[in-house]
């Protein structure tokens, strides 16, 4: 279709460079001052930690869940894992940075042992996680705010799913 696809690709790539440089998140100018963490890095790290906790909680509940409960929880866990991967892909840590990327919490988080209580616990955790992300919107840059809002919406849709599981 395009007459000069290669040239178009080059032009498109060049067009993104000023934007990336202006954002100041991972400049390639070796003579510039050492990169400082962008103001949104703290928001992103907190969101990553929260998502890691949700993944760990689902894994802990699934470790003893069976049947219909396990079948309902697995797709929700997969969505949290997708959230976590997408959030991590947005985090660019400069080489030699004093703060390493967030690491998963050591050990298994405490979750109720009874299946009904465990599902209710996850339901409340989803509501809290979605609310926390909405609270991060004012300080987040535009693209990160959109990701936070989308993840919060996904977590909000988990709430009625878990409510239906608990009612079984």
């Amino acid at each position, binding site marked *: 279709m395009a007459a000069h696809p290669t040239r178009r690709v080059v032009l498109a790539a060049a067009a*993104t*460079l000023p934007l*990336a*440089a202006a*954002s100041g*998140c*991972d*400049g*390639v100018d070796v003579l510039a001052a050492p990169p400082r963490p962008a103001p949104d890095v703290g928001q992103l790290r907190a969101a990553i930690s929260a998502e890691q906790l949700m993944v760990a909680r689902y894994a802990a509940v699934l470790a003893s869940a069976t049947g219909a409960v396990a079948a309902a929880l697995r*797709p*929700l866990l*997969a*969505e949290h894992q*997708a*959230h976590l991967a*997408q959030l991590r*892909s*947005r985090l*660019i840590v400069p080489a030699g940075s004093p703060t390493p990327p967030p690491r998963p919490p050591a050990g298994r988080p405490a979750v109720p042992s009874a299946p009904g209580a465990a599902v209710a616990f996850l339901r409340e955790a989803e509501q809290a996680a*979605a609310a926390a992300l*909405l609270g991060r*919107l*004012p300080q987040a*840059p*535009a*693209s990160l*705010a*959109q*990701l*936070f*809002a*989308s*993840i*919060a*919406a*996904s977590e*909000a*849709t*988990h709430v*009625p*799913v878990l409510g239906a599981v608990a009612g079984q």
Partner: protein
Amino acid sequence: MSGRGATGPDAIGALQAALAAEHAAVYGYGVVGANLTGSARATATADWVNHQVARDRLEALLRSRGAQPVAAAVGYQLPVTVRTPAEATALAVIIEDRVATAYLGLVAVTATALRRFGAVQVQAAALRAAAWRGSTVAFPGLTASALAAPRRA
């Protein structure tokens, strides 16, 4: 972030885009409901009313900012042919996904109140979409290209 004003052209444009999506949703749900019966039709009617309320809210937000709200089109070309309940359900999912995407545009503006309003509407659309779809998705409203685009230079 740039120094865009709280009621600058980005906010007006995002509000107009969300309003256009709501106009299309109001039209689309008329078709959805007409092809459903029973409780599914009742759900479609409730969702239709929700989109009318959201449309009116967006029009008020635009007028309060001195902007003329975009009008609904006389007709809309549907993205799918709708003759059966299954096709009506598929259309409802498409409508809600598009509405969620439009409201994510509002989440990108600088005005905090509009961001929150947009995010709440993304949630509402995602909940309706999940009910029609019968399952959830990881990133309501976000397109594959938005997810694939890393911020690296």
